[in-house]
């Protein structure tokens, strides 16, 4: 790890001023990703602004039944929150499927959203990576890319976003609240992360001096019947090959409302709008689920090492919806 300046920020104002004053600064929340990457020489911040003491740790119910989650709420605490468990089971399940107990105890909501890809060539400073060193090339395309994207990727980058929580939040229409010296703004979660195009090093719509302060999850009738299904190479402590966050409201055998997002397949939590379009108003049958899954994956492109994820994603979408239909009592 290279030497860096360390600033401890007691509040939001100090934190945003510190990252505004120091280009190349990085925010330290739980440190579960940043510290690893600093050790691997992938992240080389000049200044580390420690925000772990900033009081953004509330989980508050909103008047309309939604939820406001402070950016520094630890993943394990959010997963255990009774309102999350009761009204947004997909979020609790997504959180608990991520990392390990120790990591979830440290990791924060804001940090989880801004964690970096686990692409093997991104985390190895000796490899070519357009995300780490723009213009250097992408060793993953011709190398190991089991974790790589099949949706929205480019020849410049096939990295995936590794978060589970963000996939659930994408399905729940969450909105991210962002603070900087210029003031406050709100960004829909599905618009927070960018697809790589020819600028894979620009991963989010945030400016370098912006701080995520909260995530708001609106009330939703479908969310009560929701589920996160994560498919991975071992039973725990592995990133998703494919994951599906889904919420569905079936009335009289027809889909009244549905939200689906996919993880492990793109540089961002992939909201499955095409699948939702096919499903909405249609009969909640296996055939329709399959049709929806086909529609969503129609534009997917695989490489030799990750092509299986296209079929896996289809199957996982169908399996998750099928299970929700059973759980929702609409079978």
């Amino acid at each position, binding site marked *: 790890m290279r030497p860096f300046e360390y600033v401890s920020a007691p509040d939001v104002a100090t934190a945003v001023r510190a990252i505004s004053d120091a280009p190349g600064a990085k925010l330290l929340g739980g440190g579960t990703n940043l510290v690893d990457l600093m050790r691997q020489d992938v992240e080389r911040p000049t200044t580390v602004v420690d925000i772990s003491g900033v009081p953004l740790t509330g989980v508050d119910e909103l008047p309309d039944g939604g939820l406001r989650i402070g950016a520094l709420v630890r993943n394990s605490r959010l997963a255990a929150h009774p309102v999350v468990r009761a009204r947004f089971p997909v979020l609790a399940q997504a959180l608990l499927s991520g990392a390990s107990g120790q990591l979830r105890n440290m990791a924060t909501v804001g940090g989880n959203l801004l964690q970096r890809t686990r692409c093997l060539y991104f985390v190895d400073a000796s490899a070519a990576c357009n995300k780490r060193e723009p213009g250097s090339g992408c060793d993953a395309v011709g190398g190991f890319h089991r974790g790589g994207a099949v949706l929205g990727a480019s020849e410049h980058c096939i990295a995936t976003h590794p978060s589970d929580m963000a996939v659930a939040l994408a399905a729940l229409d969450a909105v991210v609240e962002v603070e900087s010296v210029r003031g406050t703004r709100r960004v829909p979660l599905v618009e927070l992360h960018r697809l790589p195009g020819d600028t894979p090093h620009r991963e989010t719509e945030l400016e370098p001096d912006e701080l995520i302060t909260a995530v708001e999850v609106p009330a939703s009738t479908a969310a009560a019947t929701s589920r996160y299904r994560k498919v991975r*190479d*071992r*039973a725990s402590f592995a990133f998703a090959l494919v994951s599906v966050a889904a919420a569905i409201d079936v009335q009289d055998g027809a889909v009244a409302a549905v939200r689906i997002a996919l993880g492990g397949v793109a540089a961002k939590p992939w909201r499955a709008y095409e699948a939702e379009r096919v499903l909405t108003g249609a009969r909640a049958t296996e055939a329709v689920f399959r049709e929806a899954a086909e529609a969503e994956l129609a534009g997917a492109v695989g490489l030799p090492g990750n092509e299986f994820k296209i079929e896996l994603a289809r199957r996982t979408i169908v399996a998750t919806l099928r299970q929700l239909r059973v759980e929702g009592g609409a079978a």
Partner: protein
Amino acid sequence: MTQAPERVSPPVEPPVVDSGPVVGRPVDRVDGTAKTSGQARYSAEFPYPDITHAALVHADVARGRITTIDSADAEAVDGVLAVITHRNAPKMAEAPKVSLLDLSTMAAGTRVNYLNTDEVHWNGQPVAVVVAETLDAAHAAARLVRVQYEALPAVTDFAAAQGDTKPAKGGMMGAGEAKKGDAEAALATAPVSVDATYTTPPQNHNAIEPHATTAFWDGDELTVHDATQSIDWVRKHLAIRFKVPAAGIRVVATYVGGGFGGKGSVWAGTLLAVLAARVTKRPVRMALTREAVFRTVGGRAPTVQRVALGAGHDGLLTALVHTGVSAVGRTGGNAEPVGSQSQHLYAARSVLIQHRTTELDMLPNTFMRAPGEAVGSFALESAVDELAVELAIDPVELRTRNEPERSPTDGKRFSRQNLARVYADGAERFGWAARDPKPRSMRDGRRLLGWGVATAFHMPIQLPADVSVRLSADGTVLVRSSFHEIGVGAATAQAQITADALGVPLDAVTVEHGDSDQPPAPMAGGSGQTASLAAAVLQACDRIKREALALAGKAPGSPLHGLRPADLRATGGGLFRADVPAGAEHAGETYADILARAGRDHLEARTGSDNRFRSAVGQARFMAGFLNDRRKWVRAAIGAHFCEVAVDEDTGEVRVTRWVGVFDVGRVVNAKTAASQLRGGVVMGIGAALGEETLLDPRTGRIMNPGLGEYHLPVHADVPRIDVSYLDEPDPTAPLGILGIGEVSIVGVAAAVANAVHHATGVRVRDLPVTLDRLL
């Protein structure tokens, strides 16, 4: 079923030993409290007042020459004491030529003379060492060392190198080739046959303790705390490389956090810590990062194997072909003897076993738990399952039908022959009779269930071991030997053996180990440490008892007067007449009484010799005896694995849901630690079956997943309850009947899983690991 084997008579006189009450019991580890309370010190934990820290700089080309090294920025980091490169490093002697007369010549993990050359032989080879006052400074500075290379053409693609192979030289642990009859011809005419190719990927040991060394020079005298399975090899190897007398080198490895073979050889970290200590004249600690372990310590070689089996409709094998190609490094490594178990396991009328290697510009491979058998059994036991399907014979039945009376390739007798028994026991414990052999016939909701079996087979080695045993007048016993406590409970086992041999309570015995100041012990490898030491401990205890008897026999008033060793048993802290009930009046006396009367404060016996010449003669004599013994007997630990897998019909995810392993490992010394070790082998095998794969980029030869995040060992949630049992019958040809249990239980595990996956899904996976994409 074959007939019961003829009775095997022991080739040696049984030692004078009373099979007492401690051996076999589930005794708690003698060092359990020290370990769980953090008192037990590992090699990176020995405090020195002026300790320094070292970090490695790794090459990032597969083959080439260093053209420039710029270490100015690294040297400028606060606290950096030295940046050692090939330009300024002291000369080390080359690694010695391998000689069978001195096994320590095999110690070098590679032939590379680190920092004494500008040549790079693999992607990850250390090219510089940074020494600093703090660990952080060392690692920060290591990132700042800039190295330029002239890259040279390199062969780093194992799959592409299959066209360039040559016959294996010797092979690891001495397993060679075998030929009996014309197996290819028999195969061609066999009524039923299978013939398939199986592959296994490179794997790494991933012991919980990364390799670490603390080294300190005092003039030409050297103290090294090293995470090693091979104290004696480290000592002798360092003496050669640094051109100092071995007598001046002390190697300490009191506790080692797992080895699995990865700490059997001497690797760069150990050598370079010692080198750095020489340069800085300070104690140096080199605690390798997990990544550095992957880049500098060899793992298990990838293999491509062919197994072909021919049989009659009765299932009796007429042909068995098992050939394999494994990768070795250009600077070292050995063939994976994948056909090792195939020489002995099944009664085939014709057999062909061949090992070939292909040389890659990569870090040489090394021993990893059951070299050969662990991956060879995947191919063999998968093929047997495929044959069972072809024949429509139950796979348990097919194996027991082919249990040989004598080793099919060389006609040797088996010291034990219980394959049919362990399968029968396992089938009952598992409920195998309820299996519907049809694939996809069993399910649990949306999960397809499958049941699979496979055979475990491993031949433990035995090596000469020296111990000293000291019996004090107060009845306590001190056992000393520089053996290795790598987490298996070795000290506990030797305390139990000693307690029974001398007839003293377990808590009267103290065992000191892991220090070259103690009598030399062999490496902890080949599943041989416990039995090797037991032979020496029994011999030393026997001498003590004879000496005690001689002392007592001189005293006219002693109840032992005039008795011979055969008349006695060691019990109750002394020697007592075997023909008289325990506790009877005048039946014998305690060691304390014997020693007090004789005016002695202790008796001591040491096996082996301090004298170098006599020691060499002793070792040669031992090896001759051992090899002679091997010529007569196949002495193997065996087992039967039964497992259930559940495969998600939608996603192909495989989870192991049930395991039964029944083993024949001879006598079990400690029921608790033995079960743990057998269970651990199954866990490691599940890892190989479902997740483990070192991702070596074929374009660069670089390991791309050098960490536990992306190298997928099983986590707790991947491991079901594992039902382990064993026959617990002493092997008549082994010391105390102990066969050794370190490796056998990993053998066959991957095949059992793959066979169960086939039963569940109808898909035959012949390439490890069995990942879900192969089942979609």
